[in-house]
């Protein structure tokens, strides 16, 4: 198609006149497109630079960050399952200050919005990290990882109850002038109640889902396949569960919802947009194809082109529920 830019940027020329607007409004932040690289599958961003232009992304989220350096779990940390991946990385990371000193300056060179995935061993730690980061430039938003099933708290992460979620989000909210995204865990009975608690506490957006608590066993050795016993399931296997939860949450909350879970293609991303997500996070797909995000952006664009859809925002929540 002559005249059409192949760069997956904000808007695209169709033929001579038509233009596709892929930009997506999170209220607090306008993304050039709805594709965000998910935390923990994109390193600190820099590792991906050899493979793609970071600036083509809607945004990118770095590895979960604690105040202190963390050693993470012993290996084996990964196991493949049917259409899925279980990880128990245990949030290994360099800690806040080394991140600010050695990584952040390099990331400032990119124009794509940087989102920091904030972790905490205690409720207060979330506030402390946010407070410290407020002094730093070049951060677009925080994503509160209140839902990490890898950490050995026997599943007692804040994301499992509305009260704990409220507390943590509130603590971070009080320290932050920047937008806050709260990332929910799927390991709950009532995802909507958790989302409402985050909204109530002042979260600017909700992202979901994080991984699903899972395990795998080796019948040869009769041992667990992860040294940490449990890990988090991600990948295509969980997409139908993620999609259901995003649908449930997006119908009820007033703040924007970012969908995540098993997105491998533009079509998968569109499914999340259809059920009400304003943007999506792409996780496991980055591991398999470091150029998954730009490919997905292109595929979304192609879908719009084929159907004469001019604005990606026209897709958001446009699922047809007649007769249901």
């Amino acid at each position, binding site marked *: 198609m002559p005249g059409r830019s192949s760069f997956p940027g904000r808007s695209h020329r169709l033929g001579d006149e038509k233009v596709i607007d892929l930009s997506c409004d999170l209220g607090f932040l306008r993304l050039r497109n709805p594709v965000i690289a998910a935390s923990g599958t994109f390193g600190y961003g820099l590792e991906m630079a050899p493979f793609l232009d970071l600036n083509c992304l809607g945004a990118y989220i770095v590895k979960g960050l604690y105040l202190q350096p963390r050693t*993470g779990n012993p290996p084996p940390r990964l196991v493949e399952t049917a259409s899925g991946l279980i990880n128990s990385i245990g949030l290994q990371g360099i800690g806040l200050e080394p991140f600010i000193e050695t990584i952040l300056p390099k990331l400032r060179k990119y124009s794509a919005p940087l989102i920091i995935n904030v972790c905490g061993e205690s409720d207060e730690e979330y506030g402390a990290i946010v407070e410290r980061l407020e002094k730093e430039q070049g951060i677009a938003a925080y994503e509160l990882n209140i839902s990490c099933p890898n950490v050995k708290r026997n599943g007692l992460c804040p994301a499992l109850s509305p009260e704990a979620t409220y507390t943590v989000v509130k603590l971070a909210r009080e320290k932050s002038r920047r937008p806050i995204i709260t990332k929910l865990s799927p390991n709950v009975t009532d995802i909507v109640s958790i989302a409402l608690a985050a909204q109530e506490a002042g979260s600017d957006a909700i992202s979901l889902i994080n991984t699903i608590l899972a395990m795998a066993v080796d019948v040869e050795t009769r041992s667990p396949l992860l040294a940490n016993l449990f890990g988090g399931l991600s990948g295509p296997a969980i997409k139908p569960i993620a999609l259901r939860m995003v649908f449930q949450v997006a119908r009820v909350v007033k703040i924007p919802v970012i969908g995540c879970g098993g997105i491998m293609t533009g079509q998968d991303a569109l499914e999340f947009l259809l059920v009400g997500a304003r943007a999506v996070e792409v996780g496991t797909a980055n591991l398999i194809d470091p150029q998954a995000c730009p490919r997905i952006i292109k595929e979304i664009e192609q879908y719009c082109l084929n159907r004469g859809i001019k604005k990606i925002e026209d897709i958001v929540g446009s699922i047809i529920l007649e007769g249901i």
Partner: protein
Amino acid sequence: MASIERQAKILQHKSWGNYHRLKILAPEIAEKATPGQFVMIRINETFFPLLRRPFCLHHCHGDEIEIFFKVVGQGTAQLAEKKEGDFLDIIGPLGRGFSLPEKPDKRPALLVAGGRGIAPFVFLAHELKRLGQSMIIFYGGKTREDLPLIEDLEKNGFNLRLSTEDGCLGFKGLITELLEKELPSLNPACLYVCGPEAMLVEVARISRTWRLKAEFSLEARMGCGFGVCYGCVWPIRQGEKIEWTRICLEGPVFPAEAIAWEMKR
């Protein structure tokens, strides 16, 4: 800096029982590769398996790379079904390879391979040869079938020491036993080692005892191969500290003394 070759064509597929060698057209990877580096191969476009699979660069020449692998599970089984003319999606070269002598050492380098651990050594051996570095390849396996590359290596004039556990070929016993037996007379410049973990542990002991410089090529389950998932870690000494270190980025080759075996379960 790694490249992604989306349509790397298989030029030749040779197999010996469970062992296979693919010659693949991948000019961008071939150009940049050094011995000990690896590639990540997408087995197919389904989610079965979901992740890519890592393979050492077995050889590199001109526009071509080679991989040498053993069928151990679903991914390698499917790879073994590929035919000449099929295409593969490959990322590489990845990781840090073996350190090469700046100038040839008179003493031989010893390349110690257990079974499919021979994979990185054909590339390395050719490179050492080119650099004028003499070498001996220690190549051991359970039985004759695990040593399919003997003829090829001999044809290329490499100096081999062979062992099989059942004694049907070469020294009867483990390759590490043969190594330790021959070491006194060899006075090697260094060891390059690739093989199963138990073998590495043993060579680590030997290299400590004999105060030999040794480099190990490590393996781990890899989620990505390019440093973003932190799935592939080994306990590596970094100064005073031991850190879970990504072998895809900082390795897969490490000096023997850097590996903190006491942390391995």
